[in-house]
């Protein structure tokens, strides 16, 4: 008899699945991308001999074409951005010019900026190995919250290469620049790795951190160049230039070889044909991951939310329940504490962890070694992320398997039905908006704290004298005969967090054991409204906790370990008011506008949903004060079509909001949470049925303005998709789940078509 749990290779497993008729009908598309050979260029003649020696020792005898271009730009003092897929040797694009410069002039300094601490730690090991085989005295250090106080002084004075993250630069380095004189006087290179992650609110903040950095460099007389590396996005050069306020050259083509990859597009079977309900993608993923586990294939599973990660970990841990102290299945997401994360990363590298379930925290270049397969639970929201996730499999080996499992959402279904979209199309744009006045003001305070502004100074590309006068009125600056000086005992960098819209995080405290309460994680306030309300079930590393008390004032959630068979899901109600209209296009029965709005987010109720069956087994009210915010929005107002009732309109708008919201990420690279779409049957400003598409961040970050520009394409795609959806009268894949069998699809198509036809 064949052994049940026999180890199999990826190719063997694919063959077995191909012969399985049940399995086969869920595969909508299978595509194998064949290996591609490398394109090489010789070492540059002037490349320092120690670097050459170290590369040769590693068996590198020539460079990939993109690495050579990077070196040439780098040493000629030209800022540049290199687009580099996973495993293309991107780090040499910056290591080569930087190390070469330091070897020729040991007083030279460089800053490497990574989006997370974990990435910096990882790159440090890599760089130190390279330096060691060069046999040269080059000092490189990570500088972050974990750096021991004893070596900080040494790093400040003598570190050639300082590897850090934007948050540390923002609050730990720039406000103390007088301790870093030798760095700022001699700074030659600023390396920004993973450029594509600097988008949306976070990217807008970092754009200011860089403007502040440049201002300090100028004070100390240095003029560093920027080297950026990015995953594939539509506008890498534009993003780099906007982020750094510096002109860049672009290196668009990679010379690195590509290994064989097999993509499976998997759609869960329909279990309720009338409503178009498919089997839960989470349950499908559980089954697929189980097969990979049993075949002995090291796998990474991506899920879009923390809750889904925890659900999957809970399900999959059933596999190891009978083994004692088995840690071969782990979760990995933001909100875990650093040492927990380090242990997981190590386990992946040494193979003791076989399946890791992750949110997009692991999308980035954290070195976790050879994973053979990757499962995406739903579309991660943009092509760049999807390719990054896919790149996790088969970095260093021949055959890799990538399974895309579609969820019920419109975008997921679109992607599973249009594999070309993922495999062949242009990726999205990454947008940032340093002009956001709230973000700008916060950083202007920091900049004033760091160095006084004169009466003629500008800040980056901004004229700021009036704003400085405002800060004087606010009482944080004083004006002398020549300058604006910071004059307050506040430390402005601590009043801004670069990472999330809300400025404060909620700390999660486990008080299960009396007398030894401990912090197990943290969460931004906006997410906390729906995830940490009283009675919420919070999952952490597969363990369930119930929130017993949310102290909203103190931003603390007290939780206790529980064992229940359900999870919770909460709703947020939103009220909107138009404050100011900046742009407007009027048509005969509809109009589109863009401007400032005020919104009130009110958490309403939560539901308790049973595991596995996903049935609703109870609900309750959430008692958290509403959050008020001013932001930018694009809105679409319609005249009521003839013979329609208000109720019909409500259904149509709700459906339209759902489908439009789903398709925006096809065009704009942003975190799904950065933009929201909300319908109002009777908008307060013009009493008309209106759809609001707004930036989920105070002051706006330019996303809804972009929507205003490309609305026709979004409408077209939405109408086409709703029309083509195989369901009868609307389903989660097109206009959202429907309560009734009235044909709301037609209504959605109708109302959107009216507008689109008039726009043409």
């Amino acid at each position, binding site marked *: 008899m064949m052994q049940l749990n026999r180890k199999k290779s990826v190719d063997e497993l694919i063959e077995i699945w191909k012969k399985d008729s049940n399995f086969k009908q869920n595969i909508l598309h299978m595509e194998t991308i064949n290996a591609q050979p490398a394109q090489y260029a010789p070492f540059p003649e002037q490349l320092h001999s120690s670097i050459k020696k170290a590369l040769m020792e590693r068996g590198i005898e020539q460079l990939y074409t993109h690495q050579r271009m990077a070196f040439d730009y780098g040493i000629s003092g030209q800022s540049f951005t290199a687009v580099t897929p996973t495993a293309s040797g991107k780090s040499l694009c910056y290591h080569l010019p930087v190390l070469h410069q330091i070897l020729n002039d040991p007083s030279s300094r460089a800053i490497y900026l990574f989006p997370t601490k974990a990435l910096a730690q990882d790159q440090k090991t890599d760089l130190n190995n390279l330096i060691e085989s060069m046999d040269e005295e080059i000092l490189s250090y990570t500088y972050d919250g974990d750096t021991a106080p004893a070596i900080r002084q040494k790093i400040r004075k003598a570190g050639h290469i300082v590897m850090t993250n934007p948050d540390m630069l923002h609050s730990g380095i720039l*406000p103390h620049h007088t301790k870093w004189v030798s760095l700022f006087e001699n700074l030659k290179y600023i390396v920004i790795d993973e450029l594509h992650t600097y988008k949306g609110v976070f990217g807008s903040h970092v754009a200011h951190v860089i403007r502040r950095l440049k201002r300090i460099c100028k004070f100390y007389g240095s003029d560093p160049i920027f080297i950026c590396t990015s995953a594939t996005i539509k506008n890498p050069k534009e993003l780099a230039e906007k982020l750094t306020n510096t002109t860049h050259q672009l290196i668009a083509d990679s010379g690195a070889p590509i290994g064989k990859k097999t993509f499976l597009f998997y759609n869960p079977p329909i279990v309720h044909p009338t409503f178009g309900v498919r089997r839960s993608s989470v349950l499908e993923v559980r089954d697929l991951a189980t097969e990979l586990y049993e075949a002995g294939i090291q796998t990474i599973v991506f899920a879009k939310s923390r809750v889904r990660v925890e659900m999957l970990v809970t399900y999959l841990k059933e596999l190891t329940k009978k083994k004692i102290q088995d840690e071969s299945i782990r979760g990995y997401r933001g909100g875990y504490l650093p040492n927990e994360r380090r242990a997981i990363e190590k386990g992946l590298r040494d193979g003791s962890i076989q399946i890791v379930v992750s949110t997009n925290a692991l999308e980035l270049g954290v070195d976790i070694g050879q994973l053979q397969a990757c499962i995406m639970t739903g579309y991660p929201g943009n092509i760049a992320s999807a390719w990054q996730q896919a790149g996790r499999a088969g970095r260093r080996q021949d055959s890799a398997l990538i399974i895309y499992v579609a969820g019920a959402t419109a975008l997921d279904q679109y992607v599973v039905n249009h594999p070309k979209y993922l495999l062949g199309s242009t990726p999205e744009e990454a947008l940032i908006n340093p002009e956001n006045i709230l973000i700008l*003001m916060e950083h202007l305070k920091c900049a004033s704290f760091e160095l006084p502004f004169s009466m003629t100074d500008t800040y980056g*590309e901004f004229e700021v004298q009036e704003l400085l006068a405002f800060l004087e009125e606010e*009482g944080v600056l004083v004006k002398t005969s020549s*300058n604006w000086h910071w004059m*307050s005992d506040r430390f402005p960098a601590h009043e801004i967090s670069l990472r999330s819209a809300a400025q404060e995080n909620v700390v999660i405290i486990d008080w299960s054991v009396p007398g030894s309460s401990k912090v197990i994680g943290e969460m931004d306030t906006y997410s906390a409204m729906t995830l940490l309300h009283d009675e919420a079930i919070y999952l952490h590393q597969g363990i369930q906790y119930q929130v017993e008390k949310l102290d909203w004032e103190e931003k603390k959630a007290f939780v206790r370990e529980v064992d229940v068979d359900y999870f919770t899901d909460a709703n947020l109600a939103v009220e909107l008011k138009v404050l100011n209209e900046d742009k407007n296009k009027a048509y005969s029965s509809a109009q589109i506008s863009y401007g400032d709005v005020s919104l009130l987010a009110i958490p309403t109720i939560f539901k308790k949903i049973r595991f596995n069956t996903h049935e609703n087994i109870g609900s309750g009210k959430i008692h958290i004060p509403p959050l008020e915010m001013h932001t930018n929005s694009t809105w679409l107002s319609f005249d009521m079509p003839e013979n329609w009732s208000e109720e019909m309109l409500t259904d149509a708008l709700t459906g339209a909001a759902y489908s439009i919201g789903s398709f925006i990420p096809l065009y704009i690279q942003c975190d799904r949470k950065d933009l929201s779409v909300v319908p109002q049957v009777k908008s307060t400003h013009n009493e008309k049925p209106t759809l609001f598409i707004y930036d989920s961040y105070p002051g706006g970050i330019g996303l809804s303005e972009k929507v205003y520009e490309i609305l026709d394409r979004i409408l077209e795609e939405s109408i086409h998709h709703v029309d083509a959806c195989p369901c009868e009268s609307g389903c989660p894949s097109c206009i959202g789940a429907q309560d009734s069998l009235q044909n709301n699809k037609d209504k959605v198509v109708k109302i959107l078509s009216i507008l689109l036809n008039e726009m043409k």
Partner: protein
Amino acid sequence: MSYENKIIQLKKMLGSKKENVVEKPVFLKPAKPHYIDNWVKSGLSVIENDYGVVLKRVVNYPLNYKHGLYELGELYDAIEKWETSEVGHPFSLSFDDDILFFDTETTGLRGVGTHIFLLGLLEANDDEFKLTQYVLADPSNEAALLFESKFWQKPKTIVTYNGKSFDWPQLESRWTLHRDTIPKLSHHKQIDLLHSSKRIWKNNLEKMKLSTVEEEKLGFKRNGDIPGFLAPIIYADALKSGQADSLMKVLYHNEWDLLSLITLYIHSTNLLVETKLEESATTYTNVGKWFGDLKQKNESERFLRKVTNQFDENESGLANFYLAIELKRKGQYEESASCFERAVNNLDVKKQVKAYEQLAMLNEHQFKRFDKAIQFSLEALKLVEKANCYESTQKMKIIEQFEKRIHRIENKNIS
């Protein structure tokens, strides 16, 4: 209107998008602030140098000026004591030192946005003490203030309270900003009385705030003092209103700090050089321990013996403990053991375990009294097992060590 609303209104002011490329300007002497005359009326005088203006207040004190328990001139007696004592100590001063007591007031606690707005300097001269306070006229006149401090001139011995980690780094930071303009900051010898106070009064004083030390040890109580945390607000207000009346209170606060530095130095010296002062067992034990750490064995023993001779066993547990360690090192095993035995019931758990361990070692290796060695090891084991001050892995390790020890001694005992 909310802050956020106001800011959104400001959006319209976001002007042109051209970056002005300005060459780094050569130093331009800043203008004199318009309120200078007002500040002078409050009791300050104006100095003008190449870098701008700075305000000054000077007070002279005769040697017999009394501040709390001491006259300032007793500083010279204190130095005399160090000179005649044979004991070397990092805290000691000599007549060769050019002594300057130093304290600043700042607009914040950290970062480049924190200004020093008051430099307080108190010089010890042969016939008098002289306080000079320099006040920042406005932040544009900072180079003038720094220059006037004369810290770029010949090296001095600077005595501070928490100066090593606060005032001095802060001064260095300000200096860095003007490094192209004013002469380089010189290197000065630093004595930080917060460090010595911590060594001397650990477990004796609850707070090491200078005002606490003044009241508890130096016999000085402040009347009408402003709390330090108000200083930044008062200075900002003086800039905005042009009135310096409240600011003068910050200067008095700073003056008291500096005078107390002198008497604190005198008092601490008396504690370290003599054994005459009435102080607690804890304090003298601290002093003995400090000398021990400085490898001043004789001094250390002198202070510890003072404690063991003058105080009850329950107050002199630590002194006996440290003394026992010292005696063991010198080979006086019997006396060491009896000190450990006297100490052992008057210590915290961790040190108690250490004392039993030492007793077990002495009895095993020196006295060959194996029964006693086992008995002490068992006492230690009992303590460790019920203690909750160890981490679990550490606890296991200690238990294992004692079990090994007992096992080994038992074998010796048989053979």
